[in-house]
């Protein structure tokens, strides 16, 4: 896809702005403590707006019916596979297809697949809620990043790179989503809540303590393990299948 420089700037700015909406408890100032709740509510509305801006940006640049059709079917497959995995603690089957597809079809496709997969599986299983735009954005960013995984010729190197990325991104996704609900669940004032005005370092430690004490990390570990194992088992076949499709239809990377 021909992305203009402006378009890249927009996508970058959108990514950073959305990260701000996840991580604000880390650097909130002491004078703003009372307004945090209002801000957090506003983010539930602003996050969809950022999503729309990025999606519009991708939809105006070089997307054609082949990209869309394959995006549609992979989204459906991902939503179905995700429903099969749902219910078992820590099992998260949404990410392996996103990561592998992004490494074949490019980071733009990865972003789109991340957002649409989470949206469609929420629509199909009734999981639409205030958290959804944040999940979509986090999954989209993971897909976006997966497009930048280097592609060494040796298969085991590529597999290692994919699994490494899957592990890191599982923790990042978990971290972002926990950070989103951290202020909601822990509130203010306890020793594991965020503390306005204490600075990024202190708040990160508080967050890690919260993650450890509430078992959030165990879920993240479960997600990392399932995603890695699924990649290990399916990547050789999935990569071959998707690459074949890309060649057959003369895909351009998105």
């Amino acid at each position, binding site marked *: 896809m021909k992305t203009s420089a402006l378009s890249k700037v927009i996508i970058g700015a959108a990514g950073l702005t959305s990260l701000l909406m996840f991580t*604000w408890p880390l650097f909130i100032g002491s004078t703003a403590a009372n307004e945090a709740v209002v801000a957090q509510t506003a983010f539930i509305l602003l996050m969809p707006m950022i999503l729309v801006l990025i999606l519009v940006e991708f939809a105006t640049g070089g997307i054609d019916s082949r990209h869309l059709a394959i995006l549609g079917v992979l989204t459906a497959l991902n939503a179905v596979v995700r429903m099969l995995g749902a219910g078992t603690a820590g099992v998260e089957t949404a990410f392996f297809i996103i990561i592998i597809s992004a490494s074949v079809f490019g980071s733009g496709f990865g972003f789109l697949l991340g957002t649409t997969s989470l949206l469609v599986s929420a629509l199909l299983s009734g999981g639409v809620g205030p958290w959804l735009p944040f999940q979509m954005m986090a999954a989209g960013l993971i897909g976006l990043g997966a497009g930048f995984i280097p592609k060494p010729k040796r298969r085991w190197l590529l597999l290692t790179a994919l699994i490494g990325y899957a592990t890191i991104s599982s923790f990042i996704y978990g971290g972002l989503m926990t950070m989103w609900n951290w202020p909601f669940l822990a509130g203010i004032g306890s020793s594991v809540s965020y503390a306005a005005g204490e600075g990024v370092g202190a708040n990160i430690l508080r967050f890690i303590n919260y993650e450890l004490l509430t078992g959030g990390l165990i879920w993240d570990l479960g997600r990392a393990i399932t995603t890695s194992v699924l990649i290990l088992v399916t990547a050789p076949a999935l990569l071959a299948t998707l690459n074949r499709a890309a060649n057959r239809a003369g895909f351009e990377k998105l």
Partner: protein
Amino acid sequence: MAALKASNFEPATWWVLGICLAFASGMTSNPLILISTIAFCVAVILIAREPAPWSQSLKFYLGLSAFILLTRVAFRIVFNYSAPADDTLLQLPALEINLGLGGSISMLGNVSAASLGAAFADGLRLSAIILSIGLANTLANPRKLLKSTPAALYEIASAISVAINLAPQLIESLQRVRRARSLRGRSKGLGALAGTVIPVLEDTIDHSLALAASMDARGFGRRGTMSRFEQTLARLMSLGSLLATSMAIYLFLVNGQLQLLALALGLLAVAFAAIAVRITSRKSNRTRLIKANWQSQDFAVMAFGGVAIFGAIMHWWLP
């Protein structure tokens, strides 16, 4: 006025109402207002919902809300909050834990009535937000909603509706392939996963190429007129919106002093984003067989949402 049934309204109406209520609930911590918002949402869902697959998740939203309320209160008991001593409700043994990260964490100890009340209100607020969004999701027909997305998002909406139409077929194919796999002798374990997913994926990809051919042969991809100038303008608007958002967040949360300016920037961001989407929507000259048909009852419902927001802002501004 038509009967108060979900499908007599535009699906976007329900989302406007839901979002307004969610926002209004987010701005208050008055338990009475929150409880009445929750009750209102449940009542509207019960009255207006119809037997559609997306309308059956009220129980899920109620269960989740209860769970969050309880978690919120439990967290307040478990993780010690600096409670004033005079209204102590529970006296639990205090516990100091040091995980080696940033000093010790105090747990349990004295729990005051006021802090429990605050936790309860906090939990109620999140419950009210969840039920407001739940109201929108339960009452708005997602397929119809996809048809009224702005033209700028047409491509993405097409991909999503393809996915929604395809998902049930995929479940069938997965079952069929899984059954066929048993003929080859192995149907258990992780090894079987590739054996099930790959044939389905191969079929799916063939399917997607056929679909793309069919879409294109029927005119998908015809572009309307969008000049270079318009395109650049739209992008600058997007960028402006994003910058305004970031600045608003900074001013509001980090600085905390210039709230009015932050609010203005936030509104500016929304306006810029709307303009960007509006301009980009011109890239297509498609028409729609069924257009959104806003009636007076839609406006009435949305106006109700607007009043809720107005009330909330007033309530927050003038304590």
